[in-house]
């Protein structure tokens, strides 16, 4: 078979979500990968989630994606970060088994109807006169499709660097893709070059664990996915250790050998993922740096050395690693390396991740200049959904800044040009109090259902949760006398007023949790996740309402659409920089226009007036 509705090029975290979404929605879908052993390969750290990223994984899950389920299946340990800092930033993170993660995802894609999985390097992509696309692979087979999704990760023209040893290669020695960039340039895409890196993998048995602190997962951790019933206890531990003054000395002595400092690397590296040499040079007053040792898989004794990525020559890497506490005799199994790759300027895309000038062509993941498995997966599901909608002539689907981190992510990368790989952070989400990990299901399941990716089982479970919340909320109005709640309050250092309190008022107290109220006979029959939800909404009600007002205010501009045919260069009153930026990025609404760097509030006012004028002209007969 050579004709498909959708072809997804790439089988990483973006590619898998895109292909699964497209196939599950009924499109015959081909997923092409340079090597089928790279399906959902965790090329860097063996973990899924973390701050802001954990929220994204839950959102993918609520929309009907696979990442959370696959992480639960492949779990080594689970932990909730930021406990104690507030629900807006609670962030789940899973350590996962790298091999299992790949195998489980591979099985899922293999068992998905409509989804064809094929090894092959895409070397040429062309758009045909009828708007369809043709993809030719290295073995000279050509496939045709109505929509194409590019999820090429870091494989385009990539090269890896270890000291002076530069190789034309993808991550971990996998073959790169040497020809596709040329097609992208011919199709009108601006290509830039980014860089990232990964640390060495070391042999577990060569670590001196006495010098490290063991970190297990949490005992009562909840699964990542809304539909996973339970997860196993910690299977493998992580270990914390530190670099030393010796590490610093070695790096400073050999600084001239690092490609990033001797000019061998052209790509722009992310500030949030610095190599150990970067850290030492840029923050020279810091005496030691944290190093986390993370298990790669149950099948292997390889451990990932988080905090020590490097592009130094291999012999210098050995010196550096041996200077880390507990790693004095460590055996390096795989070298740390830096990797450079081609990516596109994502401001050429709209919120559905389709190229503005090339209908039917979608992009997701690191090719868009982002970093991280979760960021890739979030874009992947959106691109896959939209590829299907494009093929079937439906309206595009877009997430928004007020309903999801994925919405924030896509808005950011399609609105602002990035000079480094984009990593999601909770600080980027202005409404993070609303975009919590606990309510991702409540925010997005309904949307996923409408799209068609949420199956009955998930949907019924979601309805059940809503029902449980409603039950709990009924109890909030019940008034309790001080005689009843007094002892509980005293024990928890909450002042007793002498007056009766409603359950709602009790739950609003800082030191009273829903679990405490079960002692008084409340909430006994209700599910824990529903009660978590009710408690957060109770304790933070004032702040949440304020946030909703802020959203309503912002939405006034978000809902003012900017027509496609505006010639910004001709609008009187706009400053030149604003004209150029607006013309290039062509925002879809005034809210997005306001977020473009170089467009001022005054420019937005001018646009408001312009729109009013335009509307007025249009309504008058000529």
């Amino acid at each position, binding site marked *: 078979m050579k004709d498909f509705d959708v072809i997804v090029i790439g089988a990483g975290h973006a590619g898998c979500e895109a292909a699964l979404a497209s196939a599950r929605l009924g499109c015959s879908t081909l997923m092409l990968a340079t090597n089928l052993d790279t399906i959902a390969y965790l090329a860097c750290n063996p973990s899924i989630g973390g701050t802001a990223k954990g929220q994204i994984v839950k959102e993918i899950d609520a929309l009907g994606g696979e990442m959370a389920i696959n992480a639960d299946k492949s779990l080594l340990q689970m932990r909730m970060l930021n406990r104690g800092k507030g629900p807006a930033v609670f962030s789940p993170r899973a350590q996962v088994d790298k091999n299992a993660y790949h195998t489980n995802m591979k099985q899922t894609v293999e068992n998905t109807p409509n989804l064809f999985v094929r090894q092959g390097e895409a070397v040429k992509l062309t758009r045909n006169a009828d708007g369809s696309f043709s993809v030719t692979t290295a073995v000279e087979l050509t496939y045709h499709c109505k929509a194409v999704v590019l999820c090429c990760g870091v494989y385009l023209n990539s090269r890896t660097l270890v000291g002076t040893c530069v190789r034309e290669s993808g991550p971990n020695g996998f073959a790169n893709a040497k020809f596709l960039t040329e097609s992208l340039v011919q199709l009108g895409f601006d290509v830039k070059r980014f860089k990232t890196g990964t640390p060495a993998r070391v042999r577990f048995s060569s670590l001196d664990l006495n010098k490290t602190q063991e970190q297990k997962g949490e005992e009562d951790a909840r699964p990542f996915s809304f539909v996973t019933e339970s997860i196993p206890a910690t299977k493998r531990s992580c270990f914390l250790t530190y670099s030393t003054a010796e590490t610093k000395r070695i790096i400073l002595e050999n600084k001239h050998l690092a490609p990033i400092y001797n000019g061998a690397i052209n790509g722009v590296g992310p500030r949030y993922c610095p190599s150990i040499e970067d850290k030492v040079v840029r923050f020279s007053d810091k005496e030691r740096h944290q190093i986390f040792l993370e298990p790669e898989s149950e099948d292997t004794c390889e451990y990932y050395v988080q905090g020590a990525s490097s592009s130094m020559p291999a012999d210098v890497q050995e010196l550096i690693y041996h200077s880390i506490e507990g790693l004095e005799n460590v055996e390096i199994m795989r070298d740390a390396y830096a990797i450079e790759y081609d990516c596109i300027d994502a401001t050429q895309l709209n919120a559905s991740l389709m190229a503005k000038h090339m209908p039917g062509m979608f992009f997701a993941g690191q090719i868009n200049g982002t970093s991280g498995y979760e960021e890739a997966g979030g874009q992947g599901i959106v691109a896959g959904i939209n590829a299907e909608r494009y093929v079937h002539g439906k309206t595009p689907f877009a997430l928004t800044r007020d309903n999801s981190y994925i919405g924030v992510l896509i808005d950011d990368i399609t609105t602002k040009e990035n000079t480094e790989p984009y990593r999601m952070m909770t600080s980027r989400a202005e409404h*993070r109090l609303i975009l919590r990990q606990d309510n991702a299901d409540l925010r997005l399941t309904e949307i996923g259902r409408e799209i068609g990716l949420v199956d009955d089982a998930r949907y019924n479970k979601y309805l059940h949760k809503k029902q449980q919340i409603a039950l709990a909320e009924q109890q909030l109005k019940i008034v309790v006398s001080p005689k009843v709640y007094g002892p509980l309050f005293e024990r928890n250092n909450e002042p007793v007023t002498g007056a009766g309190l409603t359950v709602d008022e009790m739950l609003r107290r800082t030191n009273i949790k829903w679990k405490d109220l079960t002692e008084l006979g409340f909430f006994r029959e209700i599910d824990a996740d529903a009660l978590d939800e009710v408690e957060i909404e109770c304790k933070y009600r004032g702040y949440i309402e304020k946030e909703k007002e802020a959203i309503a205010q912002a939405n006034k501009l978000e809902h003012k659409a900017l027509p496609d045919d505006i010639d910004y260069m001709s609008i009187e*009153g706009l400053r030149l920089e604003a004209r150029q930026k607006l013309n290039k990025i062509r925002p879809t609404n005034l809210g997005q226009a306001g977020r473009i*760097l170089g467009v001022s509030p005054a420019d937005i006012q001018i646009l*408001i007036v312009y729109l*009013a004028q335009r509307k007025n002209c249009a309504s008058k007969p000529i």
Partner: protein
Amino acid sequence: MNTTIVALSTPRGRSAISVVRMSGDSAIDIAKKFFSPFPTKPNLLKVGSLHTKYFDEQAMCVYFVAPHSYTGENTVEFHCHGGTAIAQAVIETCLDHGAVMAQNGEFSKRAFINGKQNLTNAEGIIEMIDAETASAVKAGANLLENKLGKRIVDLQDRLLDILSACETTLDYPEEDLELPTATTAKRSLQEISSELDELIATSTLGKYAKYGIDVAIVGKPNVGKSSLLNALLGTDRAIVSEIQGTTRDTLSESVNYRDIRFNFVDTAGLRDTNDEIEMEGVKRARRAADSADVVLHVTDDPNDRSVYPTVRPQVRIYNKSDLYDSEPCCVDSLVVSAKYGNVEIIKETLYEMFSAKDIESSDLLITNERHLSCLKRAKAQLEEAIENCDRTTFDIVSNSIKAVWQTLGEITGTTAQEDIIDRIYSKFCLGK
């Protein structure tokens, strides 16, 4: 919810009446808090009392319900007596109840957004926005040049330090860094809070620098108030006669003393009278005193110890000193003879009293109402952030610090999300 904006709609300065206009979702609710009786129906101009924190004042009020107003939003207008002081007090009262200062042309812009304006006005609006932009650009440039601007920029910068550190604790929970806790964040915020107070305090001086100092001359009939005004002005501006009640209406005139403007208001002599016109004059005199920055209480009796009843600061003036047999009884007063013109001491005293020296020499003054409104809002938000340090979790604390930073950014023009992230990475060593 829409923010509610307020501004003076008539030209600033001397006029018979001034109109203060407020537009936005809460406009009517805000107005009801300090105007009574509030009109029972929309579109109806009703007389009532304005209750400001300085004085009560008769005025007229009309309200319009969305979308049937100029802006298409709920709108309230107050038609009050002329003069800057009254309008200023009404605006301040609106601000205290939650309105924010409107930007130039903002009423028209809102009218546009709400589809209430037609094409012919569009060019005018664009010009207005251009002007606003030009003045904002100029204000921005000035900000960096003057001390006030530098202090606001500095405060915002320090807030960004605190904010980015807080955000780092949230986004990088596992890093080995010295990051703020609620206790340390609170301490840093309190320092900023007291500096904001200092800045806000300069706004009164700023107002004097921009509009001058309003001085009401009051006293019984025939004590020489009009002569005093003439002497202060150095002209025969007011009619002077032996007849009690010569001055019927208030008369205001400005004079510059060492580059500071004093707006002197001569008033009718205070006495009980049945003359209807004179009664109105007395009423106006009292109103002028209540809205002035300072009252000159004039007497010609060296044994007079009376105090004029007002919350405003006052200075007693013993006039006609050339006729006194003995020294006046109160030493903390000024002794002058308007007839012989030795009135410079009054100007000198007023000048000292209002720290006018500071006005002249310092550029650390808030003269822009929008800036002041931002600073006050920032101050309120900062107080909330400080309270949050004790009562809630760190995610909310950080959010509330961000709100303060953004409000200051409305003055300095920098509120880009990227600034926070840039600061995080420039200050902290982060990442795997």
